C-alpha cells in the first residue's frame, strides 16, 4: 500500500522513454531494522539477460519481489519499459504514489517464476496456463487453449496437458510454471532460483527451457541462480550482490573467471566447492 511511498526523484532522470527495460533508482527496502536493499541503482536493457549471484540473505530475492510488486519498496523509484511502477507522473513531470490500477497496468509487463513453482494445484497444467490469458487478457477459451498447448509443446509437456501439478515431477512442474508465465507474454521475466528446489537430475530439463527462451532473444530476463555454468552460457551480464548492494557488475567472463572483489572470490569459491 503506497502509504510509505518512495521519495520521488527528479523526473528528468526517467523521462527518456524507450530506454531501460528495468531501472532502479535509489531503491531502499528494509524489514524492520534489517536493511535489505540499500540505495540500489540498476539498469537492465531490453532483451538483456542478467544473472544475479550472491550469498544467501544478500537481498537477491527481494530485488525480484520488489519488481514483481510482491514487496513495496520504502524509497526510490522503479521504471519498467520507461513507465514508473510505483508512481504516477503528473503533466508537469511530478511524481505521486500510484494507485492499484496504475500498478496493475505496469505489472502486466512483468512475469515471475518461483523457486517453489506456485502452480495452482486444483487445476490441470493446461488450465494453469489458460487462466491469465482468459481472465486478464480477454482471450477466448479456444484461443487460450491453443496458446496453452503451444506453450506446453514448447516446454516439452504436450502430453501432460490434463495432468494436475500433483501428478507431475518437480522439473515438469517448473516447466509448466514457466509456460504459465510465458502465456502472459511479459517483456521482463524474473526467475528466482527456479532450479534449486529440484532433484539434481531434473535441473537440466528446466535450464534447457530457459536457454530456449534466452535464445529467442526478445524477453528481458533477470535470473537469480547458483548454476554458474548456465550463467556463463546464457548471461549477458552478471551482478554480484552483497549486503543489499551491487558489489560487482560485468560480463560472465569478468565476474566468474576474474573477480576483483575478495568477497566475490570467496563466494564463488564456496559455490564451486559444491
Amino acid at each position, binding site marked *: 500500500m503506497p502509504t510509505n511511498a518512495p521519495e520521488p526523484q527528479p523526473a528528468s532522470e526517467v523521462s527518456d522513454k524507450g530506454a531501460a527495460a528495468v531501472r532502479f533508482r535509489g531503491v531502499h527496502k528494509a524489514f524492520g531494522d534489517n536493511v535489505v536493499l540499500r540505495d540500489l541503482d540498476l539498469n537492465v536493457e531490453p532483451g538483456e539477460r542478467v544473472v544475479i549471484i550472491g550469498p544467501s540473505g544478500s537481498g537477491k530475492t527481494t530485488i525480484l519481489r520488489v519488481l514483481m510488486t510482491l514487496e513495496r519498496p520504502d524509497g526510490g523509484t522503479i521504471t519498467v519499459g520507461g513507465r514508473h511502477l510505483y508512481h504516477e507522473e503528473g503533466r508537469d513531470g511530478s511524481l505521486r504514489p500510484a494507485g492499484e490500477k496504475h500498478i*496493475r497496468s505496469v505489472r502486466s509487463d512483468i512475469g515471475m517464476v518461483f523457486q517453489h513453482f506456485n502452480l495452482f494445484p486444483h487445476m490441470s497444467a493446461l488450465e494453469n496456463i489458460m487462466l491469465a490469458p482468459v481472465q486478464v487478457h480477454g482471450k477466448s477459451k479456444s484461443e487460450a487453449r491453443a496458446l496453452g498447448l503451444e506453450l506446453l509443446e514448447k516446454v516439452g509437456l504436450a502430453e501432460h496437458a490434463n495432468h494436475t501439478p500433483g501428478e507431475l515431477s518437480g522439473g515438469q512442474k517448473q516447466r509448466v510454471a514457466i509456460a504459465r508465465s510465458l502465456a502472459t507474454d511479459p517483456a521482463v521475466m524474473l526467475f528466482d532460483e527456479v532450479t534449486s528446489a529440484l532433484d539434481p537430475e531434473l535441473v537440466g530439463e528446466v535450464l534447457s527451457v530457459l536457454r530456449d527462451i534466452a535464445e529467442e532473444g526478445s524477453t528481458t530476463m533477470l535470473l537469480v541462480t547458483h548454476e554458474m555454468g548456465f550463467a556463463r552460457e546464457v548471461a549477458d551480464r552478471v551482478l554480484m550482490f552483497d549486503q543489499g548492494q551491487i558489489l560487482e557488475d560485468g560480463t560472465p567472463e569478468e565476474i566468474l573467471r576474474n573477480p576483483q572483489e575478495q568477497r566475490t572470490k570467496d563466494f564463488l569459491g564456496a559455490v564451486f566447492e559444491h
Partner: protein
Amino acid sequence: MTAAPPSTSISEAPAGGRHRRWYRDPGRLVPVLLVLLGFAVLASVEAPRGRFRTDVIAGRDEAFSFEFAVSIIAPLGRGLYTTARATVLAFTITLVLGLVLALLRRSGSRLVRWPAAFVIEFIRSTPILVQFIFFQQLVRAIDGVSLGAVQILILVLGVHYATYASEAYRAGIDSVPKGQWEAAIALNLSPLTTWTRIVIPQAVPNVLPTLGNYLVAALKDAPIAGPVLGVPGILFAATAIRGDTFRQVEPFLLAGAGFLLVSLPAAWLVRRLEARVAYERT
C-alpha cells in the same frame, strides 16, 4: 525443444477420469438419487394438520408394540421431513452467509472487520434457544413483518451456523499458501479472479469436513425450536403422539431412528464430496 519429458507411470492413468462429471458415476449418482427419492416420498405425504392422531391405541402396560410403531411412522415421517427440509434450507443460508462473514472479517477496513467480528462472536457465544425466542419476539414486535415458525427456524438456524461456518471458512482461507496469492499477483489476476478461481476453490475442500459436521449438528439443533416456536417437526410429532397415547417408547425410538436416517446419508454424502474435491497438495 531439447528437454524430453520423462514419462512416469502415474502420468497415464488419471488423465481421462479426473474430469468426468460426478453424475456420470453410478457410485455417486445412485446414493444421491436415493436420498432425493427419500425426500420426495416424505414430501408427498400429506401435510400435517396440527395434531397427530393414530387409530391404533395400545394398552399402557404393553411392551413395545410393533403394530403401534408402524402406525406412527407416517406422522413422524412428516415431522422428519419438516425438520430436515428446514435444516437443508437453513444450511444453504449458512454456506453463503458464512463465506460473506468470513470475507467481511478479513476486510482491510476496520469499519467492516470489527462489526463483523462482533456479530460473529456475539451469535456464537449465545445459546441458539435464546436466539429462537429473541428473534420470534423481534418479528412480533415489528409491524408488517410476519414470519411463520418454520421460516423463523430456518433463518435463526442458518445465521447461527453461519457464524460457525465463517470461522471455518477463515481457517480454510488462511490455509491457502502465500505462494498461491503471489502467483496470482505475478499473473496480474484481478482480486475477484484471485478469490473465485484460486483461493475459494482451494479453501473449500479444507473446510468441507467441518461444514459437514455443522450440517449434522444443525439437524440435531433444529428440533429444539419445535416446542418453542411451534414447528411441527419430528420431536414435536413424537411429543404430540405421547400426549395422545401415553406411550413414549415407540415415538421417541422412531424419532431417533429418523435422525439417523437423515444424518447418516448426509455425513456419507459429505465424505463423498470431500473425496471428490480433494486434490493432491503440492
